[in-house]
């Protein structure tokens, strides 16, 4: 299954599409950076309140009236930053998991992290302790995610060779299925109100964004991002084969261990901050691969930028399309992501 996606970008028929996009990886990164910056500005400028751009700029600079300042600086800006970081984190983790598991269908939640987080969050909501503090749900979700990581890793490590990718994948799927059963069990006993908020949490939302959640994610994303970007070359070699990677000088077990833990913790942090937001981690790395190839030196930073831009756009749409009501952002990511992805797949065959 894993070797069936040869890049056709160099086939003669693809020359036309190739000319439409930057040839080099560096050019593509610049382009994605610009797109991300535009999306960030748009996310701050556009909102239910319909503020003119001039007032938004003034508010950012510290001028203007209190309400505008509060909307722009305390609501939109932290939310946009959280969206950018979450989108980037999920896409980056997705790209790493796809390389680690040597499987283009892997995504950030495939190893059970989201299931564990959801058990924690739903339990907190259903048991009624969520009301105690706005921090209860994120902390419970984080605890659940960490528990899931520990359990999956224990299973994979117990099954002999450290981090056999097939065992890891199976363990993740099985543990995820178990957590799903636990969630359904919890929801069975939930009252209508907590049922609703639990379901909304699981659909993912950035509405809980604040400067402190954004700062917390940033504190984790920064070192994790640097560490994972540094693994780009070993991941390239692992994609050729573990034996090959070893003979080219990669400490295979160590790289897999670091990649697995850092990426999992990244997912855990983002799920704790804003629930389970699907499709980004699967689709963004895939789309980038189809467009520019699989070199992880390009793919990892590109995933970070493209994931950020994508979630910024999706969240802006979620906030504004049905304003004042808010659509679940996970629905938007799927509604935009899937058709774009299908288009990319279809074009590849030209």
């Amino acid at each position, binding site marked *: 299954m894993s*070797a069936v996606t*040869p*890049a056709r970008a160099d086939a003669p028929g693809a020359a036309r599409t190739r000319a439409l996009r930057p040839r080099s990886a560096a050019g593509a990164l610049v382009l994605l950076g610009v797109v991300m910056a535009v999306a960030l500005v748009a996310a701050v400028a556009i909102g239910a309140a319909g503020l003119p751009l001039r007032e938004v700029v003034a508010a950012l600079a510290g001028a203007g009236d209190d309400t505008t300042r509060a909307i722009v600086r305390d609501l939109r800006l932290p939310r946009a930053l959280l969206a950018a970081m979450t989108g980037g984190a999920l896409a980056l983790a997705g790209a790493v998991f796809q*390389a680690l598991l040597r499987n283009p269908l892997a995504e950030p939640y495939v190893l059970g992290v989201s299931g564990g987080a959801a058990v924690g969050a739903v339990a907190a909501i259903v048991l009624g302790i969520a009301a105690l503090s706005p921090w209860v749900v994120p902390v419970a979700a984080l605890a659940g995610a960490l528990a899931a990581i520990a359990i999956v890793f224990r299973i994979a490590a117990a099954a002999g060779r450290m981090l056999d990718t097939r065992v890891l994948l199976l363990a993740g799927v099985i543990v995820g299925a178990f957590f799903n059963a636990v969630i359904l069990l919890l929801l069975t006993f939930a009252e209508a109100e907590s049922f609703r908020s639990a379901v909304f949490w699981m659909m993912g939302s950035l509405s809980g964004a604040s400067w402190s959640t954004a700062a917390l994610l940033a504190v984790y994303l920064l070192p994790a991002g640097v560490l994972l970007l540094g693994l780009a*070359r070993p991941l390239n070699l692992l*994609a*050729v084969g573990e*034996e090959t990677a070893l003979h*080219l000088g*990669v400490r295979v077990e160590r790289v897999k261990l670091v990649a697995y833990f850092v990426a999992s913790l990244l997912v855990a942090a983002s799920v704790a901050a804003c629930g389970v937001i699907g499709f980004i981690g699967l689709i963004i790395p895939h789309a980038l691969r189809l467009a520019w190839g699989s070199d992880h030196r390009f793919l990892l930073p590109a995933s970070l930028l493209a994931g950020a831009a994508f979630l910024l756009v999706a969240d802006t749409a979620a906030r504004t399309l049905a304003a004042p009501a808010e659509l679940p952002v996970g629905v938007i990511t799927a509604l935009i992501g899937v058709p774009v992805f299908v288009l990319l797949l279809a074009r590849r065959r030209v």
Partner: protein
Amino acid sequence: MSEEREVRDVVAAGSASPGGAAPGAPATANAGAPRAGASGAPAGAAAGPANTDAPAVFTARGLRFTYPRAAAPALDGVDLDVPPGGVYAILGPNGSGKSTLLRVLLGALAPQAGEARYAGRALAEWTPRELARRIGVVPQHEELAFPITVRELVAMGRYPHLGNWRREGEADRAAIEQAMIRCDVLDLADRPLATLSGGERQLVRIARALAQQPETLVLDEPTAALDIRHEMEIFELVAALAAAGGVTVVLVTHNINLAARYASRILLLDRGRVAAEGEPDAVLTRETVERVYRWPVVVERHPGPGRDAGAPQVVALAGEGGGDVRGSKAAE
């Protein structure tokens, strides 16, 4: 058995060493450092038993390895000395331990008993990266998880020199291009690997190993499933590398007759033990080959033309010729 081997080693070292090895070499070998002497090293370097400045070769003593839950050991007391330079072929029936031996020699498997050394240093003491700067490996099996181009794959050979962050410099680019020229795949550089034929792909993987600028090249069944032309191309290439480039080539193969023509020495494995070791002429006798492969054969001479005319060529016999070996099979 091992004494017999030593004798053969010493004899072979005397006759095989190019440019007439110092007449003293066999003598040195007899005088207390037989293994190092047999590896063709200058007498001076072979003097000490703890030979830290040893030549770039593999040595192994008493290797034993049994896979978990396996009934029989994959390696059962294997000794080996790969002399520097030349082509060293490891032969043997399926399941005789060839690939396991390679894994142990490359530090990918730790033997349960015995010790393997590279350049005089135990494999356990090498980091993967140190080893990769000196040994280029072409594994038997590779399955790409994601599509990449020929140049991208060859450039991976620079990883042991660059590590995770250092950028490709002029020297790296030159090494990559040289390797692709050497393997005649430069014109394929921008092609996705998946669009190449099996033979082309194998040449590209050898180019990756050459981009490492190794002193030793290890190939695990490099010509399995290739046509005659590609098979010959690869054997010609590795023989030329060993002859001109000063690279030591170690290869595992099922093609006895090409090994007989291109290898300077052959190690024949049989169920985890060394059945014979030495020059092709000495190893590929009718008795030895029939005993190891349990099939009737005759050994002919390569008729030529070519510089390898006269090399032993093993011909496996069809049905009728098998009478006496069926007998020997029954005897076992």
